[in-house]
Every structure is written in structure tokens, then in C-alpha cells.
């Protein structure tokens, strides 16, 4: 039993848990910073699955899966950087960094410039 | 496929489509150019249809095909039946265009009006020339769309409401039609129209399904043909300008529905199969009820255009009735009424428009004594009204005569009663205004005609008189080979309409 639980088998489970945990945070939290962190934690979960897969078995680790993870991390940091910039931009416009549910003002049709 | 023939068919379509599109982009104030475009397009179409008529008479075939999707072909073809409709609509288009130019003089938005007007006629001619059911449905839907802007042209809330109702009815019916057509395509493949019906070759175990499809097709076409209970859009659509009413009632929309029934019964199912599946029975009952209902409603209407509208509801069902009788004489009656009703009803609408434009008359009771002020228009109205009643030797009589013979032939004697009752009702709602118009003393003093040389604007008067004469001729000259009756009889004789047990020797002998 213990023999079969090499890191390559164990860590993907952890990755799955992280992914689900991040999803939970993304659904439940409203503050944008927390939501962005949640997405990052989800991403880390995916990378953990990838790297776990790469390390499975007795062979040397799979460089392709590792390279994919590296690419993924860079893509994730790029997306995060942009998301943070957008958050600041939104906060400047609205005074807060919270995504509130429900339709926007314009959907209700009463824009401030309405006569 | 005949390449030249195909081009001729395309040219007939393009002769109104292209000017229509050009007119859209013409600045509003280019009246002269627009009129030139309109009239020359209508003229060119008449000439082209004439060429086609000669060609078909000589026995040439005309066909154009384009594959839209695998198994879905866009086919234009010309046979005698399509020419009957195409000729009628292109002649009436010419006249209506002239009338509309006069009618709308000085009103805004004419570019838009004439653009859609031309699209409408293109769609109608497309319907006439469709070579298979899917092509028919395509043009039928285009007709729906092109007519809507005309119905709402006045832009009043009432017009917009009428437009909504019109679209609700026609788009729904179009969907029913589309589903039925797709079902037919799955069952029998996309086949060209074939006199006697291409479905008769299918095995009897499909009959249950065919019955359902047939009912769907009847329901789909019944909306435009204004069969009850799907007619209520038509009286409401009377808010449109008079030329549009003429177009709806005589040239395009209602006729398209009726023509669709003709194609369904004759070229898709074949009358024999339709009778086997009891589709003719359904149509017969519907048509008879509509004839009576329309007449009664017309009697109750006090607005001239309302009365004419309900009269259309009633009269168009004669076409369906003729088909539903499923015998050669009945079919002759129905088909010839397609032409007769068109000419007669357009005369009446032109007159109504004339009264309204010149003297502001909208109600029946305002017609008292109008004959003194506008004798020519009133004469035309009289021709139309008497034609509708079916007074010999006017056109309406010939239709009713053949329908009556058809009823006897088809052992549906009760139809004679329907016809008689309908004629009585017709008389009851057309004779009073005619009598009042000629005989009664006017209630108000009308201004004399000092604006124009004639009793009304010449562009309103001349087309009216022209169609009145046209409405008069088919009855008077019914014996001629080139009269509508002669043409329809030849259609039936030559088997363009394949009637079960067709034996025209009996039929031709009884012409009056």
C-alpha cells in the first residue's frame, strides 16, 4: 500500500483537492483579490496534477509535463497581473473592488445621463 | 436544364428585384427617377412575362436550378399554371404601381414604400415560378417579410399593431409550412412539382404521416389565404394605404396562399391522393364555412374597406372550394376565380381608394349620391360589385357556374346551397352602396372637381378604369381561347392539372 503511494500517485489527489478548494473560494468570495487568489490556487492544483503525472512510476520525470507546467505558471502569472490591473482600474471607477451580483445599472436603464 | 430559359426566369425575377433594391438607396426627393425606374421595371416585367408566355405556348421548357444544400434545390420553372399567376400579378403590378404613384404623391417615405413594393412583387412572381415546394416556401416567406413594411407604412400605432398581428400569423404559419416541407423532403426527397402529385408514388403505409403533413400544409397556407379561423389579420391589415390593400387582396398575399393550396393539392399530393386522405373534405368544409362567414361579416361592416376585406375572405375561399371539389369542372371554377377575383377586387379597392383620396369617403353611408360627383369611379365600382355578386355575364358568374357544376359533379349538392346563399349575401352587401351611390341624394354638398381635369387625379382614375375594363372582359369574352377561362380550361385539358378521371369533353360543352 505504502509502496504504491509514491509522490506521483499522491500529489495528483492533492492537486484535485486544491482545484476544488480554489473553485469553492471563487464561488463563495466576492472580493476580487480573493477571487484572483482562488483562481491561482486552482491553477496550482492543475499544475500539481501535471507534475504528479510527470513523476509517476520509476522512470525519470517526464520533461514534457514539467515544461508544460512551467509554461502554465507563466501564463497564470500573466493573467493574474492583468487581472490585478483590472481590479485597480475597477476600484478607481467604483470605489471598491467587489464584484456584486445582479444586473448593472444600465440593464435597468437608468443611466445617470438619462433625462 | 435550358440555360436560356433559366436566364429568362431569373430576368423576370430581377426585373423587379433590382429596381427595388436601387430604389431603397435613392434619395427621397428623386421622384422622377424613381417613377421612371418603377414604371420601366413593371413594363419590362410585362414584356418578359409575355415572352415566357409565348415560349410556353410553343412548348419550350424553362427551368433554373441551384443547389442550396445537399438535397435542397432552388428550382424555378414555368408551366401553364405558374404563368396564370405570373401574368396576373405582373399586369396588376403595372397598374397598381401607377395607381400608387398617384395615391402617394406628396406623402413621405416613398423610396421605402416602392422599394418594398417591388420586393413584394418579386416574391410573388417567385412564388408563381417556383418549381418545387421548398422554393415556394422560400418566396412565400420573403413575401411575408416584404409586405410587413407596407402594412405598417402609415406608422400609426394602429398600423404597427396590425403589422404585429400580421407577422404573428404569417411567421407562425411559415414555420408550420417549413416543418411540413422538411418532413415531406425526408419522406419523398426534394422533388419538383408534378401535376397529379409526386406523392402518389409513395407506399400506402406512409398515408397516416402524409395526412398529418397535408393538414399542416393546409394550415400553413390557410393563414395567407385567410381561411377561418386564421383570417383575422386580413381585416386588421386594412389600415395600410389603398394600393397596399389592393396588393394584399388581389395581387400578392392572399393569392399566394390560395396558389399554395393549388400547388399542394395538384402538384404535391395530387387531387386523387388528397381525396383519399380526406384532405379535400377538410378543405371543402373550411372553404364553405369561410365563404359564409366572410359574407356575413362583410354585411355587418360599415367601413368600405372593411367590407371589401371580408368580401375577400369570402371570395378567395371560392378558389379553395373549387380545388376541394376535386373534379375537373370544380377545378376550372377555382382556378379561373383566381384571375376573376383578382381583377374584380382590385377594381373595388382602387375605387375605394379613389373615394377616400378625392372626397374623404370611408363609410358605406357616406357613399350616397357619390355617382353624381364621380360617375366613372362609381361605374367601375358597379362593375366590381356586380362581378362579385356573380351577375351574368360578368366574370364572377362564370366562376360560380363552374363551381356549381363541379359541386354537382362531385356529388356535393349542399355546396350549391352555399353558393346560392353566398351570392344572396354578396348582393345584400354590394347592392345597397351601388344603389345609394347612383340614386340617393348626397347628404353633404361635395366640392366640385376643380383641382384636376378629371373627377379625380388621373393617376388614380385611369388605373381604376383600366382594371374595371379588365374585370369586365373575361366575362364578356369568356368564349375566346385566350380568355382566362380558355387558358384555365386548356390547363386542365392538357393535364397541367391532372384531375382524377378527367374527361374534358363534358366540361367544355357547358360554357355559357
Amino acid at each position, binding site marked *: 500500500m505504502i509502496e504504491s503511494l509514491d509522490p506521483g500517485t499522491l500529489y*495528483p489527489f492533492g492537486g484535485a483537492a486544491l*482545484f476544488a478548494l480554489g473553485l469553492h473560494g*471563487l464561488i463563495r468570495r466576492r472580493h*476580487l483579490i480573493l477571487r484572483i487568489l482562488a*483562481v491561482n490556487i*486552482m491553477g496550482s492544483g*492543475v499544475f500539481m*496534477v*501535471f507534475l504528479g*503525472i510527470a513523476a*509517476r512510476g520509476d522512470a525519470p520525470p517526464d520533461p*514534457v509535463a514539467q515544461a*508544460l507546467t512551467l509554461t*502554465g505558471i507563466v*501564463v497564470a502569472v*500573466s*493573467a493574474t497581473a*492583468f487581472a490585478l490591473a*483590472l*481590479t485597480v*482600474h*475597477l476600484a478607481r*471607477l*467604483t470605489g471598491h473592488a467587489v*464584484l456584486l451580483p445582479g*444586473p*448593472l445599472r444600465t*440593464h435597468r*436603464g437608468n*443611466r445617470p*445621463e*438619462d433625462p | 436544364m435550358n440555360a436560356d430559359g433559366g436566364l429568362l426566369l431569373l430576368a423576370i425575377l430581377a426585373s423587379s428585384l433590382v429596381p427595388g433594391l436601387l430604389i*431603397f*438607396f435613392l434619395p427621397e426627393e428623386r421622384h422622377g427617377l424613381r417613377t421612371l425606374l418603377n414604371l420601366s421595371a413593371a413594363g419590362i416585367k410585362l414584356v418578359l412575362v409575355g415572352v415566357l408566355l409565348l415560349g410556353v405556348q410553343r412548348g419550350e421548357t424553362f427551368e433554373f436550378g441551384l*443547389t*442550396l*444544400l*445537399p438535397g*435542397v434545390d432552388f428550382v424555378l420553372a414555368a408551366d401553364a399554371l405558374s404563368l396564370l399567376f405570373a401574368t396576373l400579378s405582373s399586369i396588376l403590378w403595372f397598374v397598381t404601381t401607377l395607381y400608387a404613384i398617384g395615391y402617394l404623391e406628396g406623402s413621405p417615405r416613398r423610396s421605402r414604400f416602392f422599394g418594398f413594393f417591388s420586393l413584394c412583387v418579386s416574391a410573388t412572381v417567385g412564388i408563381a415560378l417556383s418549381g418545387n415546394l421548398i422554393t415556394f*416556401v*422560400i*418566396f412565400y*416567406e*420573403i413575401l411575408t417579410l416584404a409586405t410587413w*413594411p407596407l402594412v*405598417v*407604412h402609415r*406608422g*400609426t400605432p394602429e398600423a*404597427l399593431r396590425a*403589422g*404585429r398581428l400580421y*407577422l404573428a400569423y404569417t*411567421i407562425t404559419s411559415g*414555420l408550420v409550412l*417549413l*416543418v411540413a416541407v*422538411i*418532413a415531406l423532403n*425526408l419522406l419523398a426527397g426534394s422533388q419538383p412539382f408534378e401535376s397529379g402529385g409526386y406523392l402518389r408514388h409513395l407506399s400506402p403505409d406512409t398515408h397516416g404521416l402524409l395526412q398529418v403533413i397535408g393538414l399542416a400544409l393546409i394550415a400553413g397556407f390557410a393563414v395567407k389565404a385567410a381561411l377561418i379561423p386564421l383570417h383575422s389579420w386580413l381585416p386588421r391589415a386594412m389600415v395600410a394605404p389603398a394600393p397596399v390593400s389592393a396588393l394584399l387582396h388581389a395581387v400578392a398575399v392572399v393569392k399566394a396562399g390560395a396558389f399554395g393550396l393549388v400547388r399542394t393539392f395538384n402538384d404535391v399530393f395530387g387531387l386523387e391522393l388528397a381525396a383519399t386522405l380526406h384532405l379535400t373534405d377538410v378543405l371543402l368544409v373550411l372553404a364553405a364555412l369561410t365563404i359564409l362567414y366572410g359574407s356575413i361579416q362583410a354585411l355587418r361592416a360599415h367601413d368600405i374597406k372593411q367590407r371589401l376585406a371580408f368580401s375577400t375572405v369570402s371570395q378567395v375561399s371560392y378558389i379553395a372550394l373549387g380545388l376541394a371539389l376535386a373534379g375537373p369542372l370544380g377545378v376550372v371554377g377555382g382556378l379561373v376565380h383566381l384571375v376573376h377575383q383578382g381583377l374584380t377586387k382590385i377594381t373595388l379597392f382602387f375605387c375605394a381608394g379613389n373615394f377616400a383620396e378625392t372626397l374623404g369617403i370611408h363609410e358605406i353611408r357616406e357613399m350616397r349620391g357619390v355617382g353624381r360627383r364621380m360617375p366613372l369611379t362609381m361605374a367601375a365600382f358597379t362593375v366590381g360589385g356586380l362581378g362579385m355578386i356573380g351577375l351574368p355575364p360578368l366574370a364572377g358568374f362564370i366562376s360560380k357556374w363552374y363551381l356549381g357544376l363541379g359541386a354537382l359533379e362531385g356529388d356535393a349538392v349542399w355546396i350549391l346551397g352555399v353558393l346560392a346563399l353566398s351570392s344572396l349575401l354578396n348582393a345584400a352587401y354590394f347592392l345597397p352602396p351601388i344603389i345609394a351611390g347612383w340614386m340617393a341624394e348626397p347628404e353633404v354638398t361635395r366640392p366640385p372637381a376643380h383641382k384636376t381635369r378629371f373627377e379625380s387625379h388621373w393617376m388614380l382614375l385611369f388605373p381604376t378604369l383600366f382594371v374595371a375594363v379588365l374585370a369586365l372582359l373575361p366575362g364578356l369574352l369568356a368564349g375566346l381561347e385566350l380568355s382566362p377561362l380558355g387558358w384555365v380550361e386548356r390547363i386542365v385539358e392538357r393535364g397541367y392539372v391532372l384531375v382524377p378521371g378527367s374527361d374534358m369533353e363534358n366540361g367544355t360543352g357547358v360554357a355559357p
Partner: protein
Amino acid sequence: MSATIPESLVFATGALAAVSLGLPLLASAWPWQARRIGLLGLSLSILGLLATIGLFLDAAPGMDAPAVRVGLGGWEAPLGVTLHLDGLTLAMLLLNALVALAGSLYARGYIRGSAEQRQFWPLWLWLWGGLNLLVLSGDAFNLYITLEIASLSAVALVALTGDTDAVTGAMRYLLINLLGSLSFLLGAALLYGEFGVLDLTLLGELAGDGPTERMAAALMLGGLLMKAAVFPLHVWLATAHASAPAPVSGMLSGMVVAAMFYLILRLWLLIFAPLGTPALAVLLGLLGSAALVWGSLQALRAPRLKIVAAYSTVAQMGYIALAFPILILQPAAWPVVVFFAFAHGLAKAAVLMGAGTLQKAAGHDRMNALGPVLRARGRTVFALGLGGISLMGLPLTGGFLAKYLLLEAGMHGAADAPPVMQAWTWLWVVMVALGSLLATAYILRMVAPAFARGERDPGVPVSAGMEWMPLALAAGAAAMGLAGAPLMHLLEHTAGVS
């Protein structure tokens, strides 16, 4: 490289990818000339694309491979990344190019003079190029990156107006995109774990209907459905699409959403087809039906023109979603997805850009006050109407062909299906018909004020491109009604179709 794939096609595939990446790069480095780089490059690449289509159609009957597959760097799959070019790819590239070109010509006038002009063009080219690369990609991981490129540029473009709603919409759009992409990536990871390859074609050869495939399909297709705004994951769409600059709205509704469905279809055809079960069909059908009804009802009561158009996209995506349950019964019916994407792409871009023109002219797009400008701008109303006719699925437009195909496949499927599925399939057919009626109602809502009586006021003058491009796109949607056969011919040569 299979010997029967001509060198010219291999070159063309690589060149399409290089141009799609190179132009945005050049425009990013030198945005002062980006508009010219964009228009010139876009026009040239449309020519190149048409040449490729010609080459492809000429070569395809003789090719023994179902698709042109180019191993980049000279490395074949599974080691390298492959580009994948077949009829389906070319059709989507064409749609993308047409919408992007029309949008570019439109944007010339729309964006001119604003401080964001310089920011707009590089991002616009990134969106266009990113979608091209997405469509060309044949590798699961590479698809993830292209998805991110396309969505990041789309989000930045949505936010560009700087309006509160636009930025809020962009934020929602970004979060849903990140979630969708990660879900997609996790699915790809599962597939890689089991099969050790990422190439879609190889995955298709190895995959069956095991648990990994099921889970991966749920993650990947679920992520894409989220990005495609399929009910009930559609909430973000209306905000994002309606508040973006008009050419961007057109591209988002016209192309970006369609690209997600393209990808769903691609994955389905190549990998997941064995997973088609009645339960899945019913689920997708219900989602599609709900989208159709809900989107239409929202479009019927939305207070702003662009929001009406955006909700109409939700409804129309319901149509595409409805194609999938039918596709499970009738595998041969898959081109209906492309027909819908094509017809909807052109028509919806026309409607949204037309709405943008009216918005610029009137200074707002509130439905209850648009009458005067609608009455004065016949050309734009004509574009809205013609595009609308295609959305309703009336003849003779691309939308009609799509609806015809869908109804035909549905009825055919219903006739052959087992009794349980028969009832469901008839329900889908009824929903398609109902959707057309609802579409008629909301299109009428857009267009009817133009025919009402009242004052006329053309508002602020707009550029020629803003006036003519919606019309050109609508005319394209209509012309597609006659081009069904060539498109079908192109789609015959698609990988994964037996």
C-alpha cells in the same frame, strides 16, 4: 509528413500561423502605425486564406489524410505541437477574417480620435490573431494558451471604453474565462496522464469511453460551455458584450463565442464522440432550450439596444447547443453547428455594429428613445433588419439554411430514434420553432420604431465605415443563403468525420 499532402498546403498552414502571430506583434511594437499594419495585413491574409481554401479544395480529394497536419519545428506529434488544417478550420478562419475585416473598417471611424486608439489596434489584432491560432491548433495544451490569448485580449478590449459597466463586465468576463481555461487545462492534464499524448488526433485514436475520458470531457466541454455562455453560465455575457466598444461587441458575439463552439465540435469529432449518450443529449438539449427561451425573454425586455442584441446571442447559442443532442442521434448532422456559427457570426456582428452606429449617432441606445434616429438612418435599420431576418432563420439567408439543417436533422433523428428519445427530439424541434418566433418578436422590437410616425433626427454624423459595414455584414449573412453548397463542400473534408 504524409507524402500526399502537398508542400504548398504545409507552407500555407505555417504561413497562416506566422502571420496571425506576426501582425499583432508588429502592431504591439509600433502602435503608431497599427491601424495600417492591421488593415493591410488583414486584407492580405484574407487573400492568403482564400488562396489556401482554393489549394485545399484542389488537393483535398487526392489527399489520403483527413487533414493537413504540420508538426511545428519539424517535430511530429506526440513530441511536437501540430497545426491542424481541414475544412472546418478553414471555414472558421474565413468567418473570423470576414468579421475582423468588417470590424476593422468599422473601428476606423468608431475609435478615431479617442485616447485609446493606440491601445485598441494591437489588442484588436491580438484578438483576431489569437482566434486564428486557436482554430489552427491541434494540440490540447497549445489550445489552452491560445484560449488565454484570445480571452485576455477580448477582456482588455471590453474594458477599453473605461465605462464602469464595461470594466465590471470585463472583470466578470475575465474571471469566467480564467475558470473555463483552467477547467479545460485540467481536462487536458487528465488525458495526458492516461494516454501520454496531447495531440488531439492521437488522443482521438487512443481514447474510448473510459472514466478518464468522461471526466476530461466534462471538464473541457464544461469550461468551453462556460466561455460560450451557455445557460445557466451566461450571466456575464450580456454585460460584457453590451458594454464593449461596438466593433468588439461584434467580434465577441460574432466570432469569439462561435470559436468556443468550434472547439467543442472539434473535440467532439476527434475525441469525445464515443461518449454520446441519451442522458447527455437530454441534458444539452435542456440547457439549449432554456438558453433559447430565457435569452429571448430577456431580449424582449432589455432596456437598451445593445443588451437586446447581447441577449439574443445567449438565445442563439441555445440553438447551437440544441444541435448537439441532435448530433448525438444523427452524427452526420454536425455541419449544422458551423452553419449556425457562420450565419450567426455575420448577422450578429451586423446587428451589434449597427447598434453601435445608432448609439454613436444618438448618444445613447435606450430602446424607448431611439425612434428619431432609427427613422433617420434607414441604412442602419436595413442592416439590423436584414441581420435580424437571418437570426430569425427566414429565407433566403444563412440563418435559414442553418435552421433548415437543424430541423431536418432533428426530424430525421426523431424518426430513427428509440421511443424515449423520440419525444425529446420532437421537443427540440418545437423549441427551434419557438425560438424563431421569439426572435421575430425581439427583432421587431428593434426595427419597428423605424416605421412608426414621429420626428426624425440623424444625430451626430458617423463615418462611412460605420454606416456601410453593418450593411455589408448583413448582406453577407443574406448571401450565405446562396452559398450553402460551397460551404458544405468545404466541410466535407474534415477530420473525424467518417
